[in-house]
């Protein structure tokens, strides 16, 4: 994503009090992973599979950490098994930061299925979400997603797209 968007996303995680982040880097959020990994106040755990990342985040929450999972929206499909088992089954909050591949403006054919599936899948999993296409909305959207995730003890998501990732104006 654009560097200023990555900086705003990190600021949102920090303001929310997120201190544990797992994830699998993708083309859009790679720079955010780098910022999070370098942040001394956040424990960063890279994974090779978003489902494992969700389980690790949920375990960390049970131990008192505030956790977030950063991934491409394709990863939601992988993580959905564990979101269903852990969060629909027991009520564990994790903030999800998702690249919105396949959103209007997409340039890659392989991103299209990711865009088709992600919002219906979030609704099926009863995960409230915000679609953020402006950089200035990113920080507060992450803070708000964290607030509802803690209030409902269930994940909440931020889908990142638009001017956060493209410089096409």
């Amino acid at each position, binding site marked *: 994503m654009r560097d200023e968007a990555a900086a705003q996303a990190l600021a949102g995680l920090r303001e929310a009090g997120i201190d544990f982040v*797992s994830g699998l880097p993708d083309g859009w959020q790679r720079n955010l992973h780098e910022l999070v990994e370098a942040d001394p106040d956040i424990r960063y755990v890279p994974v*090779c599979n978003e489902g494992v990342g969700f*389980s690790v985040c949920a375990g960390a929450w*049970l131990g008192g950490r505030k956790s977030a999972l950063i991934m491409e929206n394709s990863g939601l499909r992988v993580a959905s098994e*564990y979101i269903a088992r852990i969060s629909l089954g*027991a009520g564990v909050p994790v903030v999800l930061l998702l690249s919105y591949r396949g959103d209007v403006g997409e340039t890659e054919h392989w991103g299209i299925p990711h865009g088709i599936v992600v919002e219906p899948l979030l609704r099926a999993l009863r995960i409230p979400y915000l679609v953020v296409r402006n950089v200035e909305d990113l920080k507060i959207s992450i803070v708000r997603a964290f607030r509802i995730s803690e209030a409902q003890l269930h994940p909440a998501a931020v889908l990142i797209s638009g001017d956060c990732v493209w410089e096409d104006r």
Partner: protein
Amino acid sequence: MSLDRYGWLGRLAAAVPDDALVMSTYIGAVSFEWSALTSEHPRTAHLGQMGDVIGLAVGLALALPHRTVVCLDGDGSVLMELGQLVVMGQEAPDNLVVFVVDNEVYESIGSGEKGPRPTATAGTTDLAAMARAAGVPHAVTVQTAEELDREIDAAFFEGGCRFVDVRTEPGFAKVPPRQLDGFEDKYRFVRYVEHLEGIQILRLARQDRQLMERSDR
């Protein structure tokens, strides 16, 4: 050779330190037996299911690095998500020991005329070798009570990140089934962790908190 499950779970339950935490599979009779052996103590979270038990335990161990975390999983569950071994090996928390009830079958689904359905560990798959290859510093298979006792002693007296695949006879003890769902299990465990650690995990609603802060009585 392999071990009687209720017997070896009993040896482990007696050895787990009082101040340790346990992340257990919720699947089937392992959970029921562990509950019976531990009087359903809230230090155990029965929140893990197929493919997520070790992942949950890794997260818990990283969140509380000063606290011993025991993970109790089954062979079918480990096999479902082998990526868990990768993150366990990568992070290698010194305070985490995983015990796998490896009975080589999918026992909780029941048996038909041909007997229980086998898992891959009944064939060519070696979970301890896979854990070692993923970077877990100490990963072994045990088949006798003596080997198990050595691993239990090492886990709780020497520490270190450990994976112990316990070859186990199929079959389960007659114990009462658990009556808790995941939500109640979560609340019990989290409240216990809050008390144990002196931390707050479940937060009071902000509006309620502000109301109380305004009280002048």
